[in-house]
């Protein structure tokens, strides 16, 4: 995947947990524009590991002067966000991929309703800028436990049609109330924890929303887990995937290239055939269907793991 070396132009803590990073071209060239909801993959050379994490772009999609992301520090995560928070400072050079959008606005919508939970606010920040420019009606509902966690508040500064729900203050988000009474032709977008996405899907189904008007993006990050062994048949190697490593990263560290795009189990690029499997694949992706999961004949190396005796994949 094509990437370019960018300079970290600014690092700004938004809350104790969330920090904003701004990237610019080292020679101040314009960066490619993008569409609201797009993400980039940031490469992090962390000691002997090369981490690649996907982050939603939060800056104005029509402004090529720089890219901005907001990173929440996940202390129980695999270390990517910790690296960003502790190792990266202004002036550093990092490789950043071309923008890719797996959570695009459906431009047919007459109105866009966005529902964000916690750090799930990030893809909406660029979408809001696109929608205001296109002058399309929208409303954003943003739920967070506390104001301290609601990093988006600083980034929304005064945008119109924004409803903030802070559960600590007793102002919980009522999904049913948001979805009922929306005009025909409205599309709803959800980004946040699985529970929030499921909640919106349930409420929408109950209220008779058409499936095609629902869009969601779950957090993209490979979960840690127990180490496991995998054999890459075509490359003729067997390797151990560490607890804080994904199968994809382990393959890359061993010099085996697997095509990828989102690294979060959503785009389908890294789908790999399973040749032999004695044990249980932990399918963490949003790509494979029920049938493929149960058959254990395919695996998404970017997020999925394995427990058992033997796993051989066609790579």
């Amino acid at each position, binding site marked *: 995947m094509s990437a370019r070396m960018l300079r970290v132009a600014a690092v700004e803590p938004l809350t104790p947990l969330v920090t904003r990073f701004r990237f610019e071209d080292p020679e101040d060239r314009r960066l490619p524009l993008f569409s609201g909801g797009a993400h980039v993959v940031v490469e992090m050379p962390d000691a002997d590991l090369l981490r690649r994490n996907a982050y939603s772009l939060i800056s104005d999609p029509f402004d090529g002067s720089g890219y901005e992301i907001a990173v929440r520090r996940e202390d129980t995560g695999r270390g990517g966000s910790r690296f960003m928070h502790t190792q990266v400072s202004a002036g550093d050079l990092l490789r950043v991929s071309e923008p890719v959008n797996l959570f695009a606005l459906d*431009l047919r919508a007459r109105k866009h309703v966005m529902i964000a939970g916690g750090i799930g606010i990030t893809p909406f920040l660029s979408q809001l800028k696109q929608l205001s420019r296109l002058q399309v009606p929208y409303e954003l509902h943003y739920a967070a436990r506390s104001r301290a966690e609601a990093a988006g508040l600083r980034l929304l500064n005064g945008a119109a049609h924004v409803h903030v729900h802070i559960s600590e203050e007793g102002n919980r988000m009522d999904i049913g109330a948001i979805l009922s009474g929306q005009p025909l032709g409205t599309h709803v977008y959800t980004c946040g924890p699985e529970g929030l996405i499921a909640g919106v899907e349930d409420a929408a189904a109950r209220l008779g929303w058409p499936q095609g008007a629902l869009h969601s993006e779950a957090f993209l990050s490979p979960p840690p887990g127990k180490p496991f062994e995998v054999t890459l048949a075509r490359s003729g190697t067997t390797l151990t995937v560490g607890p804080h490593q994904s199968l994809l990263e382990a393959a890359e560290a061993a010099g085996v290239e697997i095509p990828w*795009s989102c690294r979060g189990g959503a785009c389908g690029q890294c789908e790999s055939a399973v040749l032999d499997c004695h044990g249980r694949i932990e399918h963490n992706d949003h790509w494979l269907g029920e049938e493929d999961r149960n058959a254990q004949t395919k695996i998404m190396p970017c997020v999925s793991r394995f427990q058992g005796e033997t796993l051989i994949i066609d790579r």
Partner: protein
Amino acid sequence: MTLQFNDETFRDDYTYHNSAAAILRFPFPFDRDSYMYSVNMEPHAGGPEGSPFDKRFDVDEHYVSEMRDREITLAEDPLRCQSLPHMELAGWDLLELIMVSKAEDYPELFTLNRDGDRWHWINRPLGIEHRFTFLDPTTLPCGPMEYITRQAQGDFAVLDQREGNLWMDAGMVTSQADWSLDFDIGMNFFEWHAPVPKAHEMGVFQRALKFLLNIRQGSPARRLNWTMTVNPRLDTSPENYHKWGPEKRTVTAENVGRKQFLRVELQTFWRLPRSNALAFPIRCYLISLEDLVTVPKWGRRLHRVLRDLPDELADYKGFAVNRPLIVDYLSQHDDGAPTSPGIFP
């Protein structure tokens, strides 16, 4: 090299012709002596100098006449150009892509000056000079997609990407191999490919769609497709079948070399930045059999490909009726010698 534009027609008296240089740069589509469908994609990242793969949007000696032919077709049938309301942003993206590419690749023909959103476009071959405001449709005489595709050779489909599929939601289609934008508008990738034989069972479309959904900005892809056309006609549309269909019956052993054309589409695929849509330009190149066989390798190879092609493909491509005449003609230019791999002469 200064480009000389031909004064020629693609209808009525059919004065279309290829210069010696145009014959040699023709995008011959067969890299071996046989043909079957494949997802024959490769990066659209240049090619041999002077070849149609060299520049992002190839401009050749037929440019001015092709644009004149498009104007005639559109005047008779405005529905050849359609853009569903949500595709306007994609239209601007496409306008930017083409203007920037042409101005950079052909500075002697095209100039684009940009001052923020105030753009100044000069198209010398067509004698156009226009100042407009980017993203403000009131400053153009028509929609952005129509505006720029009246100045760019080839058909253009602009595909919306959503629900893990691609949707034919906008296009400019006046030089098509027997398909209709007006019929396909709003269809998804599988729906508009439904008429293609064999390829579905081969899983070609599943693989092709997965590839296309992942096309990234700055990394366009391309492939070649082909068919056979009687007379050098760009507008072989279903809408006008009554005009060109009967012409298939005018081919004889005496005139087949002059009247029968190999029609090649250089298809490219571009991710558009602001809209996340996929631009799908389909550029048409035509060469008569008698011009084609002046390159001995191509004469030999086309003979073998057409002779051995499965019947349903000849049917689908619409030349089954003339296949015996074509194969007979080409067999005179096939001495049985081996051919070198690859598409170039």
